[in-house]
């Protein structure tokens, strides 16, 4: 809210608009607040129950509850750590590398405080909204290690990774750090969320080793209908994820939602078509995989592009992620159980590059960047270099730190359950309960 001059404005809205704005504190806008509360709820819903269902639907019956426990645990623990220090270290100023300690334990967040990055909504709301991103990023990783990781190890990893990887990367890209300063485009988390989760998942899958029976036993999902419910909630929730990243109830939020939706549709159609063509049958798992691939891939570009760009990105997402899950994984022989790397990791990287391709000045224009942020299609080829640097920095940092952290945790409590526990299923052995 930089402009304190009174300006003529041409409209009193039919229904009451509500933007007082005479006092300094009064930069908070009720309409934006209304939307951002909804968006925060939507992104929380993406993790519980969205992601919990999506993942639970893909594992075997004996691991359904354990898989859900990982989503629940991520919400509970990451949220508290975020309030404790994560938010402060990511989003409260600081230097190019890390935020400040000003908001440790939420100190100073009051009724009328706002964050520099979103002066139109209460700071507590900005903090909560960003929290839901940290939560889902950690929860996503669980898909790579499904069916075999210890719950204790997962929680320790999530807590450590939040501070060592998520928080710095979020600061670099969004919180005033060097990647953002360099002009890197990542609207809603192609690198911060999806690439990050994908790389961490890949590293964890390598370190843990494949599931017992991988390649020999039937590891088919127990109940794909759960995964379909989860996909529906993820999809709707993504309106809050990408649309909310506009941080206002504005046309930009709408544009982000439009490209997001068309990317999901195109991803689903492409994956469906590829399966139909290659195997004679389009699977439901394929359709939802394509939709999620489209959603993950559009994320970094969503607020910078035109709706039809979304469809193009969705098509590319479907092609690349299909190949990653069916060909690449086979070839590299890692067991990324639920394809976090193949879908989110590669999708996130691809989308980050495509943001550099499709960014459109007319959409990405803001008060701070009055000329918009053009991409390669509009002649700004250099943007691709910036995007590539962002991807490389994130992937390397995340990969290395995740590896070290997992090694440490392995030494402390062990990463993987025993063979008998894996065979009996994690529900009973880790949580003492079972789907009857």
């Amino acid at each position: 809210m930089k402009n304190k001059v009174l300006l003529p404005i041409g409209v009193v809205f039919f229904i009451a608009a509500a933007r007082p704005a005479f006092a300094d504190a009064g930069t908070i806008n009720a309409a934006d607040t209304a939307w951002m509360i909804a968006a925060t709820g939507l992104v929380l819903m993406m993790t519980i129950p969205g992601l919990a269902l999506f993942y639970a639907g893909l594992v075997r019956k004996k691991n359904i509850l354990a898989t859900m426990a990982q989503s629940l645990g991520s919400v509970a623990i990451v949220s508290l750590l975020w309030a404790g220090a994560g938010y402060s270290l990511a989003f409260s100023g600081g230097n190019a590398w890390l935020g400040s300690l000003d908001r440790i334990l939420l100190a100073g967040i009051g009724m009328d405080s706002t964050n520099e990055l979103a002066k139109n909504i209460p700071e507590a709301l900005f903090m909560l909204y960003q929290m839901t991103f940290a939560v889902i990023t950690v929860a996503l990783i669980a898909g790579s290690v499904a069916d075999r990781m210890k719950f204790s190890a997962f929680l320790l990893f999530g807590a450590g990774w939040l501070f060592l990887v998520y928080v710095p990367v979020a600061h670099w890209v969004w919180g005033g750090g060097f990647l953002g300063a360099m002009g890197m485009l990542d609207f809603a988390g192609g690198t911060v969320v999806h690439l990050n989760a994908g790389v961490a998942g890949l590293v964890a899958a390598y370190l843990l080793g494949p599931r017992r029976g991988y390649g020999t036993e039937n590891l088919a999902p127990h109940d794909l209908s759960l995964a379909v419910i989860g996909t529906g909630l993820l999809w709707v929730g993504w309106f809050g994820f990408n649309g909310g990243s506009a941080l206002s109830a504005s046309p930009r939020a709408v544009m982000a939602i439009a490209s997001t939706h068309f990317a999901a549709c195109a991803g689903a159609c492409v994956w469906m078509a590829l399966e139909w063509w290659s195997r004679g049958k389009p699977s439901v798992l394929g359709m939802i995989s394509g939709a999620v691939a489209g959603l993950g891939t559009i994320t970094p570009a969503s607020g910078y592009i035109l709706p039809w760009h979304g469809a193009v990105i969705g098509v590319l997402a479907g092609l690349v992620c299909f190949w990653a899950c069916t060909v690449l994984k086979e070839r590299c022989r890692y067991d990324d159980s639920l394809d976090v790397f193949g879908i989110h990791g590669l999708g996130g990287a691809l989308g980050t590059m495509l943001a550099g391709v499709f960014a459109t000045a007319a959409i990405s224009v803001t008060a701070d960047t009055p000329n918009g942020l053009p991409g390669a299609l509009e002649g700004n080829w250099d943007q691709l270099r910036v995007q590539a640097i962002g991807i490389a920095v994130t992937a390397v940092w995340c990969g290395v730190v995740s590896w070290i952290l997992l090694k440490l945790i392995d030494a402390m409590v062990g990463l993987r359950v025993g063979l008998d526990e894996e065979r009996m299923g994690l529900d009973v052995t880790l949580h003492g309960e079972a789907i009857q």
Partner: protein
Amino acid sequence: MKLVIAVIKPFKLEDVRDALTALGVQGLTVTEVKGYGRQKGHTEFYRGAEYAVHFLPKMKIEIVIPDDREDQVIEAITASAKTGQIGDGKIFVTEVTRALRIRTGEADNNAL
């Protein structure tokens, strides 16, 4: 007494039960089973992975009957469970040495 075990196609269950009750059989026990045999299964695929599912859903019917009804019962099952297509299933017969109705304590043929 005999225990007749019939493994049939699931959608034939009601037909078989009707045929048996028409014969006066008053009780039977049914279990959902998976069958492996000449009838081929199908392939399920999940992203990269393909799983051959060799086991097909079948219904197993168990009926204990007096010795003298064996032929009748087998004929009734055969007639009602048959589609003529592969996978119609089998009937096996074993000997039962004793039968008992828990509620009344009636034994053997009276228990059926």
